[in-house]
């Protein structure tokens, strides 16, 4: 082994250690018997996992988070799929501007974006908190949807659509019977990615939550301000598991390389 690759190995090990070690601590603490976060924990118990279900706020905000993530993702797909299609198939004036506009939520710092949404949706438009939260999430996950759908459209030969049209299918019909069935894996991936993003979002939600309407991550943050017990660790482990399962589904439908290319 030469020096260069040895250095690389050490470097990778360090990086992974830093990434994984906190997760190990959290996981260990979640199943510990102590009343506070302690590593290594003393004893083994499921009581903190059980305690999650005792905290009524967690249950309620979990439901809201799921609702917002599911509806938001559906809305974003409804807007994102046609938008991605038009952006990738048609040349028109202002195309670059639109592309930039759709992708801007990733470029603007999320906290700035969240604050502007608060100003606009709640203060100016006087929308209810729940509606604002839904709109905010929809907007913030739209770029992911468009990115993923665009890249699966790009790998779909346009002449296949032209073939369908030449055989007598109109443009819209062609989209539904030819294009959509061939980009389903992209749609699934976009859905999951958007769902994870919405479910875990803090910087947008923190501005768009109010009395009675909050999301799980926000609730977790306020919980740790007052309690030091490992309930949060247990909850974190469950959330990690959920994300891992979803990523596993993506890996199965598309391969993770889909996002790195």
């Amino acid at each position, binding site marked *: 082994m030469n020096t260069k690759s040895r250095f690389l190995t050490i470097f990778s090990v360090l990086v992974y250690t830093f990434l994984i070690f906190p997760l190990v601590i959290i996981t260990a603490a979640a199943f510990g018997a102590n009343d506070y976060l302690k590593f290594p924990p003393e004893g083994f118990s499921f009581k903190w996992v059980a305690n999650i279900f005792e905290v009524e706020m967690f249950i309620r905000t979990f439901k809201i988070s799921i609702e917002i993530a599911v509806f938001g993702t559906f809305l974003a797909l409804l807007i994102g799929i046609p938008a991605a299609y038009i952006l990738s198939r048609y040349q028109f004036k202002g195309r670059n501007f639109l592309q930039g506009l759709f992708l801007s939520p990733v470029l603007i710092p999320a906290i700035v974006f969240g604050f502007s949404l608060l100003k606009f949706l709640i203060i100016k438009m006087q929308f209810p908190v729940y509606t604002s939260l839904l709109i905010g999430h929809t907007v913030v996950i739209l770029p992911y949807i468009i990115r993923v759908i665009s890249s699966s459209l790009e790998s779909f*030969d346009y*002449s*296949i659509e*032209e*073939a*369908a*049209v*030449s*055989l*007598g*299918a*109109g*443009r819209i*019909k062609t989209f539904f019977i*030819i294009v959509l*069935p*061939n980009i389903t894996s992209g749609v699934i991936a976009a859905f999951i990615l958007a769902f994870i993003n919405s479910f875990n979002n803090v910087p947008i939600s923190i501005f768009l939550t109010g009395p009675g309407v909050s999301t799980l991550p926000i609730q977790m943050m306020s919980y740790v301000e007052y309690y030091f017990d490992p309930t949060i660790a247990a909850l974190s482990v469950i959330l990690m598991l959920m994300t891992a399962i979803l990523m596993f589904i993506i890996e199965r439908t598309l391969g993770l390389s889909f996002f790195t290319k």
Partner: protein
Amino acid sequence: MALLNLKDVSVAYGDNVVLKDFNLNIKKGDLVSLLGPSGCGKTTTLRLIGGFIQANKGKFIFNDKDYTKVPVHKREFGFVFQSYALFPHLSVFDNVAFGLKLRKTPKGEIKKRVMEMLDIVGLADYSKRYPKELSGGQRQRVALARALVIKPDLLLLDEPLSNLDAKLRVKMRVGIRKIQKELNITTVYVTHDQEECFSISDKVAVMNEGVIEHLDTPQNIYDNPKTEFVANFVGFENFIDLSLQSKNEDISTYNSKNGRVFKVKSTNINSNKETIKGAIRPEEIKIVNKGGDNKDENTLDGIVGISTFLGKEYQYMVDTEVGKLLVNGNTNKRYKEGEKVKLYLPKEKMVLV
């Protein structure tokens, strides 16, 4: 009357004018090929006929109706793409049935017609396969069957064989021609393979920079090309500047720059210009031994330059008084570099452009 008629059509991509005042007539039942170098506008012409692109100017008349503004899906034309463009999520059967289903054809009839068509293209046993489970040649035949099963008014093919190997190309082109004749379907065929195009077409349109330079039967284009470009494209590799001496009904006389006399058949004169180019294929020039022939008409003296082996013949670069000429000679004898030779250019083999 022509079935298809493009009248003074212009097409541009932005500022790039690809077709300018383009005209094309095609008779019912004919297979017409568009032949030309890369980028000359063949695909553009085909896509214009198919309705995928719009003309800036001009008219497209089909079957005495104005088709200029008819959208693609209302045209009833079959289109075969270079990439085949099969529907990846549908089986061979469903690919071919696609057009019929859209036309609300009864189920029983769909089944009958699809299987008939698959039979014609020799894929009856493959109806349950998916496109990715087929070879290139099989995919191409599915694409053909899919376009033909709707009994299109016109069949458009864009280099349908270019992704296949040489042997299969020959086999498939015979197949395409056979089906085309059997179904008597008017066809426009785009290719840049000369042999392919000459072998299957009723008419060939040789295109250059968005203009049809010569539209005629393969035989006429091969023997008597109308322009310098076409001559060059179909293998007339030698051009000699000539000026007119006397024109007669049968045989006309021209002079080369160095004063040699050239007699040519008057039917081979394709331009009225005083100074004109005499074109001839390398394989039509005869090498005659110096001093062997007394007549000086249609001859040139030259010195053999480099030679190459073509398999059936040798090809020489011969330096003559009117420039370098490519000349083929048989394999009985290989002339050496620097050897003096006399070239004979038969009058019936020369074409004036």
